[in-house]
């Protein structure tokens, strides 16, 4: 394997050098020279306007993948409640299946699922594989991986997707390792290459500063985890009778997987599961996040942020500076070392907008920033900006919201 610069077409323009994250390119004698720091990430190949850079000598194995077809979605549930991201994936999966002219499948392990599944059929699923047993009561990856592997080996989907939740991001790597295929983490866009009919998987890297498009070569299925809240949840039109809880209505599209529960041994002993005490902390469950940073000034002032969040039916987020000062607990932290969130509305109060914070929230639909420094970087990515003192703005806003509610 080798990375080469074509000396005849290279102009030494240094575009590639600017793109390289690893200090692996020098411009010497008017030409780009790639040194041993190179990790073959390919960024320079794409950056080069003259198509002068090429990676050669990758061992290609030629496989026949014609036995694989369809898009299979891992439908994640927690104690019987289907995770939102699963509906998003079904919606996206339908589009991918249509682009390929193939089918959409779901695989759902769990316990006492029957009454919980009818909503799934509003998303144009062709077939739902269910594994309903007490062994799937708790989401434990070595147990779940076995049934997913069984389904993949039996039904050979071309594409297999799961949510990039904590569970999905532990479970799917295990499944991929067993199946021996690639897995692209935390994707934010998926599409089908119209010619090659392969899955193009796009994901943020380097803290969201760069997007990379990744393909799965040499193996099937093409597997990816997908970031929650990014894909739209779109029930297909004319979805029959949304409200019925009677799964029997769909029995022609349901298949119960056969398996021997005794084969599902686990290496894990679950000692306890407890909800985090105090305020709910799953930031990604909310459409509105009101975040406070160092500008809040102290732990007590977070009650103001909380009041605003509550009045909007939202949740409190925070910058690392606020968490590191112990003004609020870590599960509230948004950003590169905290949670990545994509709410409908993100209100940043007293947050400067350091790149690590932006990494965790820049894909929010609408960003509103309140900061008294007009040059704060947060204003570069906000949709609406208010330069001002948050202690003057927020109480007034809360009052208006409360009044507004009283009137209507």
């Amino acid at each position, binding site marked *: 394997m080798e990375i080469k610069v074509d000396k005849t077409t290279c102009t030494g323009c240094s575009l590639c050098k600017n793109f390289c994250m690893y200090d692996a390119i020098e411009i010497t004698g008017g030409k780009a020279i790639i040194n041993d720091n190179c*990790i073959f990430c390919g960024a320079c190949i794409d950056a080069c306007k003259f198509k002068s850079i090429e990676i050669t000598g990758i061992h290609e194995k030629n496989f026949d993948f014609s036995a694989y077809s369809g898009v299979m979605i891992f439908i994640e549930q927690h104690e019987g409640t289907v995770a939102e991201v699963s509906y998003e994936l079904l919606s996206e999966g339908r589009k991918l299946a249509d682009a390929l002219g193939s089918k959409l499948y779901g695989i759902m392990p769990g316990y006492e699922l029957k009454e919980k599944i009818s909503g799934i059929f509003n998303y144009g699923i062709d077939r739902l594989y269910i594994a309903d047993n007490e062994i799937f009561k708790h989401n434990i990856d070595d147990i779940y991986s076995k049934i997913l592997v069984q389904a993949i080996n039996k039904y050979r989907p071309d594409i297999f997707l799961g949510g990039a939740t904590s569970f999905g991001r532990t479970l799917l790597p295990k499944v991929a390792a067993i199946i021996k295929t690639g*897995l692209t983490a*935390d994707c934010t866009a998926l599409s089908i290459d119209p010619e090659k009919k392969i899955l193009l998987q796009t994901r943020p890297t380097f803290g969201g500063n760069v997007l990379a498009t*990744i393909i799965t070569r040499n193996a099937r299925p093409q597997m990816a985890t997908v970031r929650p809240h990014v894909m739209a949840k779109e029930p297909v039109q004319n979805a029959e009778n949304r409200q019925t809880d009677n799964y029997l209505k769909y029995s022609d599209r349901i298949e119960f997987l056969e398996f021997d529960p005794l084969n599902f041994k686990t290496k894990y002993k679950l000692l306890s599961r407890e909800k985090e005490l105090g305020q709910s902390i799953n930031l990604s469950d909310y459409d509105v996040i009101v975040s406070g940073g160092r500008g809040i000034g102290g732990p007590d002032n977070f009650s103001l942020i909380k009041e605003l969040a509550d009045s909007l039916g939202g949740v409190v987020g925070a910058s690392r500076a606020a968490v590191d000062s112990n003004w609020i607990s870590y599960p509230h932290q948004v950003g590169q070392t905290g949670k990545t969130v994509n709410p409908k509305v993100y209100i940043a109060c007293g947050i400067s907008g350091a790149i690590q914070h932006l990494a965790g929230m820049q894909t929010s639909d609408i960003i509103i920033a309140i900061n008294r420094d007009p040059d704060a970087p947060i204003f570069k990515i906000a949709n*609406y900006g208010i330069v001002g003192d948050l202690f003057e703005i927020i109480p007034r806003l809360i009052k208006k919201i409360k009044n507004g509610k009283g009137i209507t």
Partner: protein
Amino acid sequence: MENIFRIIVCIKQVPGTTEIKINPETNTLVREGIETVINPFDTYAIEEGVRIKERMQQSGSEAEVTAITMGPAQSESILREAISLGADKAILLSDRAFAGADTWATALTLKNAVKKLEGWRLIILGKQTLDGDTGQVGPELAHMLNIPFIGYASSIEHISGQKITVKRLAEDRYETFEVRLPAAISVGKDINVPRVPSLRGKLKAKNETIPVLNIADLSMDEKDAGLSGSYTQVIKIFTPKHVYEVKMIEGSPDEQAEELFTKLKQLNIV
């Protein structure tokens, strides 16, 4: 065999992201004097390894921490840093053939290296890297070694020579698992506060010889390593097209609050 509780900490060198900026006019990357650092989450992994070692030593058992990385020759510097932070030994896996590895090929290379070591009981990883940002190496490595993996650990409740009890935050819940050793875990920043290098550590870091293992040492085939051994391949890297047009809300605080309130109404959130 001597009874030492051996801990392996997997670390990776990554570009320091504070240095990466996007030029808003041209939408291209601007990098000024890039520096490479230990992946931030891996510093918590080192610290946790050292703390477990110290706990073991206090209870009279022998323990040892080995830091391991796969990367270009210059990654040696992060291994020295790991030693200054309390690791006892370090191993560098370096070969041109390892370059371009995806998580699968990385995990496979790490597995082959771990298999060469003896007496290890626990592997600690960072929960994800800054550049790859996948968090997949841990679960894949654990599967290849046929040991349990607990991701996103927020505290180690108990550890003995045989078992480990780990608490972790999964979505909105804390889960506590007990597994038998050997096992692998990944950690984030809520698990500890890393110490600063000690003087003695720095001295040891300077003098330590760090063995370098190449593809032949790991008895691996070139087609299973690096980009050749990867199932995924990056085909394009680009900067997100931000069409940010910030609308500034001006006026007195009262007017600003009023306009913001109207916006929130239009957005249907009040």
